[in-house]
C-alpha cells in the first residue's frame, strides 16, 4: 500500500486551524473604543440611585463602564520558516486597575491566540505575534496614551499594560481587592461597550454561574457565553467585582499529541466548546498574579 502523501494532512491541519481560528476570532472580537463620557453619568465611585441599584442593567453601565479602556496596537505576525511577516492592526478592551495608569488585559486579546494557532498549524513557536505601537485610549477625555506591555501570564490569560506618560491624568480604576465571592447558581454581570454603530453604548450581559472548577485552576463557569471579548471584569448585581473573563486554552505541554493527527484533533475540538465562551478567573487570583508580577518586575511596574 502506498504511503499517504503529506499534503492532505497539512491541508486538513490548515483547514482545522482556520476553522478554529475563525471561531476564536469571532469570540475574541475586540470591543470598540469608549465614547466621550456623558457628564451626567456617575463616576465609578458614585452611588447609583436606589432604583438603579435594584436594576444592574441600569446601574452597572453607569458605575462601571468608565474603568474600561481600549488598547490599540499593531500585531507583528511572523512565520520565519515560511518567510511571512505581516503587521495586523488590533484592538482590545481592558480594565484599568491603577489610577496611575496600569491596565489589565486578556493576553489572548493581545495576540496570544497566535501561539495556539501556530501549534494547530504545526508551526509551533515559528508563528509569533508581537504587539507593538501599543496605545491605550483612556480617561475622561478619551485620550490616546502610549503604552507598554510589561509582562503577561499565559496560564491565566493576563497581560499588564502601563501608560507611559499620563501627565496629570488620574484614571478611574477597578480594585480587584474589594471583591465578592460567587458560586454555582449566582448571577454574574459583565459590562461591555457596543460597536460605534450603536454609539458605543455600555450594556450589561449576564449569566448564571453553572459550576466552579478547580482544574486547571479555580474558575467560575458561566452557564452560557457571557462576553464579546475577554479581559472584561465580571460583577455581582450590586457592582462588586467577582473576577475577570478570560480564555483558558490548553498550553503546549497539554497537547502531547493533540495536533499531531488532525482526525484526533477534530474529535478533541468538540471539547473546546467548554473553553471558547470564556470563564471567570476569580478576583483573588487576579490580585495574586498582579502582586507577583509587580514584585518580579518592580522597576518596570513603576508608575509615574
Amino acid at each position: 500500500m502506498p504511503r499517504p502523501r503529506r499534503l492532505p494532512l497539512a491541508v486538513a491541519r490548515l483547514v482545522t486551524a482556520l476553522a478554529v481560528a475563525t471561531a476564536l476570532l469571532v469570540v475574541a472580537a475586540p470591543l470598540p473604543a469608549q465614547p466621550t463620557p456623558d457628564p451626567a453619568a456617575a463616576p465609578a465611585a458614585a452611588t447609583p440611585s436606589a432604583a438603579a441599584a435594584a436594576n444592574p442593567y441600569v446601574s452597572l453601565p453607569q458605575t462601571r463602564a468608565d474603568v474600561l479602556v481600549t488598547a490599540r496596537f499593531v500585531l507583528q505576525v511572523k512565520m520565519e520558516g515560511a518567510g511571512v511577516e505581516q503587521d495586523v492592526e488590533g484592538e482590545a478592551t481592558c480594565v484599568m486597575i491603577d489610577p496611575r495608569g496600569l491596565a489589565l488585559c486578556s493576553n489572548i486579546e493581545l495576540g496570544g491566540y497566535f501561539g495556539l494557532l501556530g501549534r494547530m498549524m504545526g508551526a509551533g513557536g515559528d508563528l509569533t505575534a508581537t504587539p507593538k505601537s501599543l496605545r491605550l485610549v483612556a480617561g475622561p477625555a478619551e485620550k490616546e496614551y502610549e503604552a507598554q506591555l510589561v509582562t503577561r501570564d499565559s496560564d491565566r490569560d493576563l497581560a499588564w499594560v502601563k501608560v507611559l506618560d499620563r501627565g496629570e491624568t488620574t484614571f478611574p480604576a477597578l480594585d480587584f481587592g474589594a471583591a465578592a465571592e460567587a458560586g454555582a447558581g449566582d448571577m454574574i454581570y459583565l459590562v461591555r461597550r457596543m460597536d460605534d454603530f450603536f454609539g458605543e453604548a455600555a450594556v450589561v450581559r449576564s449569566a448564571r454561574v453553572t459550576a466552579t472548577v478547580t482544574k486547571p485552576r479555580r474558575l467560575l463557569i458561566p452557564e452560557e457565553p457571557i462576553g464579546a471579548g475577554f479581559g472584561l471584569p465580571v460583577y455581582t448585581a450590586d457592582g462588586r467585582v467577582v473576577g475577570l473573563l478570560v480564555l483558558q486554552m490548553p498550553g503546549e505541554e497539554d497537547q502531547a499529541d493533540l495536533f499531531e493527527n488532525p482526525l484526533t484533533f477534530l474529535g478533541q475540538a468538540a471539547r473546546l466548546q467548554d473553553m471558547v465562551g470564556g470563564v471567570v478567573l476569580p478576583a483573588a487570583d487576579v490580585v495574586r498574579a498582579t502582586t507577583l508580577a509587580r514584585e518580579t518586575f518592580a522597576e518596570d511596574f513603576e508608575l509615574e
Partner: protein
Amino acid sequence: MRSTARLPLALVCLLVVLGLSLPLAAVGAQPAAEPAPEPIPEPIPGLVTSPTAAESIADETAAGLRDDLRQVIGAARDRVFPALVSIRVVVVRYAQGKEWKGQSVGSGTIVSPEGHVVTNFHVVDHGEKFFVTLSDKQEVSAKLVGEDPLTDVAVLQLDLSELRDPKQPLPVATFGDSSHLQIGDYVMAMGSPFSLSRSVSLGIVSNTERVFAGGFGDDELDEMELQDGQRSGLFTRWIQHDALILPGNSGGPLVDLGGRVVGVNQLGVGPMGFAIPSTLAQRVAEELIAHGEVRRSWLGLSFKPIARTGLDEGVLISSAVVDGPGHRAGVRAGDVLMAIDGEPLTVRFVEEVPPLQARLADVPAGESVSLTVARDGERHTFDAVAEPLERDLGDEASFHAWGITAQQLTSKMARDRRLASTAGALVTGVRSGSPAQLAEPAIVEGDVILAVGDREVADLEALVERYGQVTGDDAEPVLFEIDRQGKNHVTLVEPRDGDAVDPPRELPKAWIGVATQPLLPELAARLALGDAERGFRVTRVYPRTEAAGSTLAVGDVIVSVDGEPVEPSSMQDSGLLARRVRGMAIGEPVVLGVVRDGERLDVPVTLERTRITPEEARRYNDTDFELAVREVTFFDRDEARWDDDVEGVLVERVEPGGWAGLGGLRPGDLVLRIAGHEVGGLSDFREAMESLDETQPERVEVVVLRGVKTYFQYLEPDWAPTVTPEE
C-alpha cells in the same frame, strides 16, 4: 531564476494543439523529457553478412559528415565559448508596500575588449549589483551601461580592474548577420542553464520571423509584456529554434556554425527557443554603449494587418492615442495608412508589423513625417511631428516609515490609468499595519500622491525629497493629498515606531527541571508502579538545574507533589504536573513522591524559576546585513546538546538577497565570531555590528556552528547609502 515574458495566447493554443504541457512558470523553459532508448538489435549468429560496396560508401560518407560536423561545431563553439559569461544579479523589487531583495541569474556574451556584455533586459531588470563569471571562472563585478526594455536587450560592462590580469585581452565574440539565416540552418544555444556552468545545445532554425499574435483570428501583434507590464515585443521578429534553452539561458548567444552570434536567446517554451536577431540586438547594444539608451520616437498609432479586413493595400490604423502626435496631426482610428513620406506600403500579415513600427520609431524626435491615409474613399495627408518614446514604466522607491512603495508615472502609465497628467507618484503597494494603512482613510494601492504636507509632489523624486523632510525622529503626523480614481482625498499619516520589538515577557513561575510523559493506567500497569495507578514518568533531567542536583533520574515516576497526587487522566493532562508546580512559589522546597523500580521514595527538590523559551528570547535586527538574530535559550542549548562553553547568537532570519544571505548565513546558524569579535551573546553581537558600521570593512568573516560543524562565511556588505529612501 527569472521567467521571461507571459505566454501569448497564440502560443498557448499552439501548444495545446500539439498536446504539449506547459510548465508552471509559463515561459520558464523546462527540461525535455528523456526519450526511452531504442533497443539495439543483437546480430543473429550465422546471418551476419559483409556490407555491400554501396553500404560501405554510405558508412564512410556518414562518418565523414559526422567528423566534419563535429569539427565545424567545435570550431564555432571555440569562437564564442570563451566570451560566454554567467550573470548573477542582486535585484530589488517593490511589492506589498516594501522592498524585497532577491537574486536572478542569466547568461551573456562579451562583445568588446572594453568588457561590454550583451544580455537580456529581464536578466538585469531591478538589478542593484551585478556579478559576472567568466569562462576561466573568475567572478568580477559589473555596472549597467544601459537597458532597452522594448527589445529586452541590456549591456553590462565588466570592472576590468578586478581581473586577475587586467592586461590580458578579453575574449570577444563577434556578431553575425541574422538576416542571412534560413529555416533549417544549424544553430547553437550557449549559456548557463539553471546557473550551472556553461553549456551548449544544438538545433536548427525553425522560423526566422516569429511574432506572436492574439490567436484564433486575432491577428493584432502581441506586445509581449514582461512580468510587471513592460512591453518587449513591438519591434522584434524572433528567431525560433529548437536548440534547448532553459531558465538561466536568458541573454546567452545563439551561434551559427561560423561561430558568429546571430541572436540573443530571450525565452523558451518546451522544445522551442526564441532569440532576438543579431541585426536588432547588435544595433541596440551599440546605441546603449554609445548613449546609454536607445532613442526612439512615437506617433501614438497602432496597426492591424489587412489580411482579414477586405482591404487590398495599406495598413489599418487600429488605434490613435488621443492627443498623441498622430492624432494631433489629424489621423484617426479606422484610417488606412497608405504611404509614409510618399512611399506606399502594405502590411498584409502580422509579421510585417514590427518592421513598420521600427521604421516609425526611427524617425528622429521633433521631425515631421508625412502620413497619407485613406478615409471614406478619399486620401488625406497629415504631417505628424514625432515625439520621443518614453519608457513604459517609471522608477520605484520604498518609503519605509510610511509603509508604501511608489512609482514615477510615465505617459503610458498615465494613459493606461486615464490620469490627466503624470503629476504625482503612484502608490504601488501599502504594507499591512503600516502608518499609511492605519490612516483614516487609508492610503491604498493605485492612489496617486499629489501633495505631502503643504507641498505639491510633482514626481517620485519630489516625494523622496519630502520623505526626507518629514520623517525621522520626532516626526509629526503629515497630511497627504491623493487622487483616487478621479476623486481628491486627504488623509493624515501618523508616524509610528513600527520596527521589530522583543516579544512580551512571560511572568516567571516555579519549575522543576525535568521533562515528563503522562503515564495512564494501562501503561502504568506494565511498569510496576506499586499502588500508584498513574503518574508522570521522567523522560529527561535537564542538566544544570536544581533537579539535576537531586536524586531524580530518567525512568522515575512522579506520583505526588508534597503529598498531593498528580494523576493524569488523559494525554490532555500532559501539563498537569508542570501546571501544579507553576502554582507554587519559586524557591519553595517540595517533596516529590516517586516510584522507582516498584519502590516508593521521597525526593526533595527546590522549585526554580521557569526558563526563557525561544519565543520569549530577545532579538536583534541588523538592517545593514539584513538578518535577525536572537539569544540562545536554555532549551536551544539542551536540544542542540551544547555545553555552557558554547556561546553565540542564533540566526533567526536571513533576508533573501541581503548581504548575510549572499554570504551564506542560514537560519539556525549559531554565530560564534564575527570579524574577530567573539560573540558571547546579544550585547556582544550588537557591539560587533556597531564596530563594523564604523570601520566598514570590505569583507567580514563570520564563524558559525551549523549542526556539529563550524563554517567560515564571508560577507561583502555594500556600505554605500542606498539611492532609495528605504531605511
